[in-house]
């Protein structure tokens, strides 16, 4: 049983050392790989100097492309599970263990969810999360409490499917589509930290565009997709 922690990093020179050192020192049982997404800062140089496991993309692909690179690596190396782990320190490594336990019960995807036992706050930021949850509920009939959580773990079958297909971004619309297609998804309660350094790239306009894209995708487009199963290696 092997698990790969995939850390997509775009301009995270201030955070990457803290995140990777924590994984290396306190959780040596998990393999990890940093995917540098064509950063314009010193992220790649720092990783190389410190001897971290690094996939260095020469141009910027965006989160979906960077994460898929990590999954392709996991697919080639034959990992059983892979988890998406933020480079900005929002995700806590202590929850990888419980998520692994859950996925070994036979789930395809396990989401590190902030709102399984905790209540979702009524803030502006959570309106988007609520809308996406409602859209997912409408099209799949199933509840996902934290669809926008970026901490997701995939099993071997999903690694292959995500690695080799188009339109498999690590976003709520893919989750909704897979749910509709019969994938099994579980949520595990986790806590997340606020990012310590650097800036989130989401501003108001981008958030609105993102929401529109997600809602259109979940409510309309995903209903017309045909699933292509991929053979595991």
């Amino acid at each position, binding site marked *: 049983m092997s698990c790969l922690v995939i850390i997509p990093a775009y301009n995270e020179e201030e955070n990457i050392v803290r995140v990777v050192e924590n994984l290396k020192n306190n959780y040596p049982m998990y393999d990890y790989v940093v995917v540098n997404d064509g950063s314009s800062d010193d992220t790649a140089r720092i990783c190389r100097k410190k001897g971290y496991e690094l996939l260095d993309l*020469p*141009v*910027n692909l965006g989160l979906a492309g960077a994460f898929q690179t990590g999954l392709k690596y996991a697919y080639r190396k034959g990992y059983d599970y892979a988890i998406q782990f933020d480079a900005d320190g929002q995700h806590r490594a202590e929850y990888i263990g419980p998520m692994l336990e859950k996925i070994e019960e036979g789930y395809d995807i396990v989401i590190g969810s902030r709102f399984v036992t905790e209540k979702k706050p009524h803030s502006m930021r959570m309106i988007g999360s609520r809308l996406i949850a409602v859209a997912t509920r409408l099209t799949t009939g199933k509840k996902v409490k934290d669809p926008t959580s970026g901490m997701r773990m995939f099993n071997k079958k999903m690694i292959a499917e995500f690695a080799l*297909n*188009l*339109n498999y971004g690590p976003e709520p*619309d893919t989750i909704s589509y897979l749910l509709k297609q019969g994938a099994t998804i579980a949520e595990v309660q986790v806590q997340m930290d606020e990012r310590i350094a650097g800036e989130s790239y989401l501003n108001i306009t981008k958030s609105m565009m993102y929401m*529109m*894209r997600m809602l*259109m*995708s979940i409510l*309309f*487009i995903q209903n*017309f*997709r*045909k699933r*292509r199963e991929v053979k595991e290696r």
Partner: protein
Amino acid sequence: MTLVFRVILIVMSLLTTYYILKRIRQSKLQIEYAIFWILFAGVLIIFSLFPWLVTLFTRIVGMQLPVNFIFMFFIFVLLVKLFLMTIELSALENKVKDLTQELALEEKDRLDEQKEKIRGEELGDDL
């Protein structure tokens, strides 16, 4: 707007949507790129179903015929789309250039290292 014109717009929109969805089904189009065309088709269908909307906009803009407003709308939206696509194309071309150069430089680095190694071994033999 005449009934025939409205029917033509609706049929055209439905065909566009059908074709776009077919490409997504075949895994040949990214969803990000489909959104624009589906929204575009949606707006045209709304205009065809509720022509009073078009009449209203026509009056606001101060045009004579609703059909002129439709044409202006088409041209404006497509112009903006073309402009954005030019920017995207330029970024894309730049990325392909960077990527190609990176490949060539990496390959040269590798060859240089190999040569160095061979030379090192030859020197070792001479001694």
